[in-house]
Each structure stands twice: as structure tokens, then as C-alpha cells.
């Protein structure tokens, strides 16, 4: 059974590969939630008004972004247990959540930052003038404006992450790639199972991409309800 496409192999491999889909999806969601939450931590740390601290945080983020996620994954899974004192052995799934989650949190943190920086300075000043507390400024005025424009970008990262999750098969997380690989090794047939993997990824990520495109259009037009009457106030941001 080498070289030629066989529908028999295809239909035999399909349910086996599909078994891994829940792990793949589950890992994507777990990594993503981790990155969303940890992204807030980066954003918060970068706003601490103490320059040297900021430099350190920025440098650490840059370091994490500049090393390949695969290397980080290997480090956490293989090297971390050998680190004295703080080191510990983690199972493959947890290692993958930590590794990919931390890697992507640095990007997500940037997305949050761009959202916050995108809010006009006048909004802060108006909320000071109305005597809001710091907490109220964030919750009532700044975040409601900062978050919606970032939703399409956050969605894009979800898809990118979904496509990076097969990296976890290298440390033994049994997702669809891992299932396909082991099927291939057992039956010496890689063409069909790996084609199945590609199809499954396509089926999941393509509609998501369309959905995100739609979201983006919706976000861009969210306050322009009907005609904007004579809104010509020379670059003023209201």
C-alpha cells in the first residue's frame, strides 16, 4: 500500500485521526484562554510607571517572541524538570498550554496595548473632568472603547494558534497530527491520514476566518448608525 491513494485507507484512517480532534480543539482553547489572561498581565506590567521595570518587561517579552515556540515547548517539557529548585516535571498537555500560552500571550498583550493606546487622550481627560475614579475610568470609559476594535485581531490569533497547536505532538500530545502520524507508522501509509489532517484544519479554520472578517466589518461601523450628520469638526474625536 505504498504510493497510491486508497479510499479504503482513507475511510479506515478517518475515524482514528478524528479521535484526536477533541484534544486539538481543547488544547487550542486552553492555550488561547491562558494567552488572553496572561496578555492582560503583560499589558498591566508594562504600564507600571517605573522605567527600569518597563525595560525588563519589554525585554522579556521580546525574548519570548524572538525564540521559536518549538524551542520553548522542548524547554518546558524536557529541560524544566532539570532546573534546580523551581523545576518540575509536567505532563505533555500542561507543558503545551504553558509553552504556547506564554508565547502567544506576548502577542495578545501587544494587541491589548494597541487597543488602549487607540483610545483618544481626550477620553481620559473628560473622565478626569467628570471625576471618575481610576477604576471607573477603565471599566466605564476606556476598556469599552479599547476592546471592541481588538476583537478581529484577537480572532486572528485564535486561528494562528490553532495552526500552531500541532507543535505539541512533538512532546506527545495526542491531537490529530499525532494520531495521523502513528496511523502512518503502523500501516506505512502517510498520504491519506495526513491529507485528513489538512482537511480537518481547513474545515475548522476557513469558516473561522470568514467569521472574523465579518466581525471586523461590524466593529469598524459600530457607531456609524445611519447617516452621520455633518460630523465635520476638523479631526475632532468626540
Amino acid at each position, binding site marked *: 500500500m505504498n504510493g497510491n491513494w486508497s479510499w479504503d485507507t482513507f475511510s479506515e484512517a478517518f475515524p482514528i485521526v478524528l479521535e484526536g480532534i477533541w484534544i486539538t480543539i481543547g488544547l487550542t482553547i486552553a492555550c488561547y484562554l491562558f494567552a488572553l489572561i496572561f496578555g492582560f498581565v503583560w499589558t498591566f506590567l508594562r504600564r507600571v510607571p517605573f522605567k527600569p521595570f518597563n525595560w525588563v518587561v519589554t525585554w522579556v517579552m521580546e525574548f519570548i517572541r524572538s525564540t521559536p515556540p518549538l524551542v520553548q515547548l522542548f524547554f518546558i517539557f524536557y529541560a524544566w524538570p532539570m532546573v534546580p529548585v523551581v523545576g518540575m516535571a509536567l505532563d505533555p498537555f500542561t507543558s503545551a498550554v504553558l509553552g504556547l500560552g506564554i508565547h502567544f500571550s506576548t502577542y495578545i498583550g501587544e494587541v491589548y496595548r494597541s487597543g488602549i493606546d487607540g483610545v483618544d487622550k*481626550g477620553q481620559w481627560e473628560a473622565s478626569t473632568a467628570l471625576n471618575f*475614579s481610576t477604576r*471607573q475610568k477603565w471599566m466605564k470609559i476606556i476598556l469599552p472603547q479599547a476592546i471592541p476594535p481588538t476583537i478581529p485581531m484577537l480572532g486572528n490569533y485564535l486561528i494562528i494558534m490553532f495552526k500552531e497547536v500541532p507543535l505539541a505532538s512533538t512532546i506527545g500530545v495526542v491531537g490529530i497530527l499525532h494520531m495521523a502520524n502513528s496511523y502512518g507508522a503502523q500501516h506505512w501509509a502517510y498520504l491519506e491520514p495526513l491529507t485528513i489532517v489538512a482537511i480537518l484544519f481547513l474545515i475548522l479554520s476557513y469558516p473561522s476566518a470568514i467569521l472574523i472578517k465579518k466581525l471586523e466589518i461590524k466593529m469598524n461601523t459600530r457607531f456609524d*448608525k445611519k447617516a452621520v450628520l455633518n460630523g465635520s*469638526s476638523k479631526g475632532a*474625536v468626540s
Partner: protein
Amino acid sequence: MSEPIVKFQDVHKSFGDVKVLKGIDLEIKPAEKVAVIGPSGSGKTTIIRMLMTLEEPTAGDIIVGDQNLWKMEKNGNMIEANDKHLREIRGDIGMVFQHFNLFPHMTILENCMTAPIHVKKESKESARKHSIEMLEKVGLGDKLDNYPSQLSGGQKQRVAMARALVMRPKVMLFDEVTSALDPELVGEVLEVIRDIAKDGEMAMILVTHEMDFALDVADKVLFLDEGVIAEQGTASDVIEHSKNERLQSFLKRFRS
């Protein structure tokens, strides 16, 4: 003579190496209407921004009521004011901005209601009632559920005034509120300010380029030039009869 509600005592402000204000002394009485005029870059806006706590003075004292705005006492020493101290005093001051700064994610009515509800802890019903009253007063009673992006510049600025007024400040600051407007929309905004001024009790500081308007509304006019108050007095003293040459040449540019 009633006690001044706002006092500036030798207030200086620098941005980096640039000295914008070089010793401002100023007293404003309750209900007094003060216009601040002067060439751009003279520090007019900085004066009211410091009073609104948007800029911290480099030196000097700003007194609101009987409290020092930017300093507070701790164990017998005067130290830099913390956020709590600023919040206590800031409640007496309101501001309208050149670029309106309405909250785009809220309707006109919500723009007005949000601070009374969350800052003053007013009930929703009473905040709503007062906000609608105020919006009717500025002529926008029919736009309550519109979003800022659906309004003209003049309408936005009137909403901004209603939003500041529902907080019932004792001092209201106007920062070149007509400068960002198309010329044909300036009149409607000035009309509302005139209306507010007539109501009395509230002190007002207007940074403005509208000389005729200043003459009409203000009890007192300050001419600010190169970081100091170069001339002050009643509107007619300053605008009509001053001998100050720089003031004369400044005014000439508006009167041609």
C-alpha cells in the same frame, strides 16, 4: 465682598525647558465670569488645565474654596496631593473641551447620566431626569438616544456642556470651546454659554478667541502674554481702553 472660590498664588508651569507660565496670581469669586484672552502659546489653556487637575503646576499654589488643590497636609508637612485628595476637590470643577471628548460608545443621554450615577451616586431616575432637563436646556431634547457620531460639531459641544452641567460644578471651565467648530455653528454654542452665564451662581472661566463674546459675557477679562497676566480688569477696561501695546496689536488682529 465674598471670599474667592479659586485662587492662584505665584503659579509656574514648565514643560521640559519651556516655561509656559511665569507666576500667575489670580482670584475668582463665586459666580464671577472671567474671560482669558491672549496669543496662542501664551498659556491660557494651561491655566484651566491645572485647575481641572489635568496638568500639575511646577511651582505655586492653587486654592479651591479653602483647600490647596495640588498639596495636602500630612503630619504637619505639605506633601503632593494624592488621587483621593484631588477627587475630593475636583468635584467642584467642571470642564468643556475644545474637541468635545464625548464618549462615543454611549448615547447622548448616557453621556450625561453616567457621571451623576457613578461618581455622585445619584439614583438612575434622578440622574435621568436632570440629564434630560439639561439636554432640553441646550436644545437637544429630541436627540437623547442618538450617538455622538450622529451629531454636528455644535450639537456635540452642547451635549458636552450639558454633561458638565449635570454635575453642578461651582466653577466651570471652557477651553476654546468654539475653535474646532465650523463658523456657522459657533453662534449656537455661544448662545448656550450666554444662557448658562445668565443663570448666575456658577463661576466661569472662558478661554476664548471670541472678543465680542468675551466683552458681552465676562465680568473680568485677563490678557495673558508670554506666561504672565499682562492686563486685567473689566471687559470694557481691557478690550476698549487699554494702553498696553501688545494687547492693542493682539486685538487689532481680531477687529480688522
